[in-house]
């Protein structure tokens, strides 16, 4: 396994620990959740194999589920965006393409990063909350939760990206 691979294994555990020990507690106004662990799947290198992505997503989602007592829900949502990710990436390729081995991160520009993450995170949250609510019974309340969580999750993701960007 190369250097980047080992880093990603470490990141996997860091994301799980951060999610279950910190972000699980951090809920704003009873509606706004931060599911930062999604960033693990979103930030894997561009040319990562689709199958590998989905297997990783399943393992990560399943681990999160164990702590949230919601067996299968996080796994399903995360596998779905892992499946969609590469198709989405190839349809929003920036001019000049991606650098080899780079991760689809903020280096491609804030606007590009938002175009990349917002729809995927939205799909993830929508699946998560509607499955958990068991249908569309509380549609507007669930929508509110989704939107508030989207804002929160993306903001934290952006902040972390700003801090981890190499200084130029």
């Amino acid at each position, binding site marked *: 396994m190369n250097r980047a691979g080992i880093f990603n294994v470490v990141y996997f555990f860091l994301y799980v620990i951060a999610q*279950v020990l910190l972000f699980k507690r951090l809920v704003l106004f009873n509606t706004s*959740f931060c599911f930062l662990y999604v960033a693990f799947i979103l930030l894997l290198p561009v040319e990562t194999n689709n199958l590998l992505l*989905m297997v990783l997503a*399943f393992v990560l*989602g399943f681990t999160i589920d164990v702590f949230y*007592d919601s067996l299968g829900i996080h796994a399903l949502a995360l596998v779905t965006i892992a*499946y969609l990710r590469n198709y989405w990436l190839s349809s929003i390729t920036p001019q000049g393409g991606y650098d080899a081995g780079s991760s689809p991160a903020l280096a491609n520009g804030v606007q590009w990063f938002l175009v990349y993450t917002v729809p995927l995170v939205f799909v993830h949250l929508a699946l998560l909350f509607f499955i958990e609510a068991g249908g569309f019974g509380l549609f507007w309340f669930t929508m509110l939760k989704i939107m508030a969580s989207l804002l929160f999750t993306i903001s934290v993701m952006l902040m972390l990206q700003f801090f981890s960007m190499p200084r130029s």
Partner: protein
Amino acid sequence: MDRLLNFVYQYRAFFTFLLLVLFCSWLIVENNQYQSTRYFNSSNRLAANIISFSQGVREYFSLRRINSDLAEENANLRSQLERYAAVDSLYTDTTRRFDFVSAKVINNSVMMFKNYITVNKGRADGIKPGMAAISAKGAVGKVKSVSDNYAVLISLLNVDDQMSSSIKRTGHFGTAQWDGTDPRTINLNYIARHVTPQVGDTVVTSGYNAVFPPDILVGVISKVNLREEAQFWEIKVELAQDFGRLAFVEIVRSYQKVEKDSLEISTIGDIK
């Protein structure tokens, strides 16, 4: 055959996706079944240990509040004891009906639609799925699954959970169920039109299901509404227990549940 295999291979990503999604769906459906002993939840050893450690750290910050809660409960119990000492010692109800096991909350949430509580007592302490959990302030939930040293409770703040409750003043009973929005209030359903519930009435557990002891406080009615055509009142109950600050619960072992259930089933048939 070759072409079929080629086809599967060409769309392998999609088929893997389908397979994983189906598997997840199966897990979700399976996990939704009420009361099952499962391994993959927060009562399994590794997960529970991590959560327990984190709770141990956090606990130091709320010791003052827990202390005052416990002192309050102590005072309450003492006053009850006084009352018992005053009654005739020839107390006739000699059958022992309920027994309590105190447990510490190590994991709890109030913001999801389906909230669960993990506590640090399990099979080794005689806890079984289906038992009730109460706190000093009111009803909390039921045990969903247990491991050797931990148990997961299904919180009252879970849209799947229902609890037989009654209005203390009038004696009419209905079903308490959370609607998934506000963690401070719960709905009381199926109270018929002719009853006159009032804001401020106390709602307690009814004791009809033999899981909960009767007369455990649930909350106080905060809003009543009767629609023109409706058969039942819409009643909002403000919960007595603030679920966001739950620190200790008592698991209720009911000695008569098995007897009561088997008698009812043999009389009216298995209704489930």
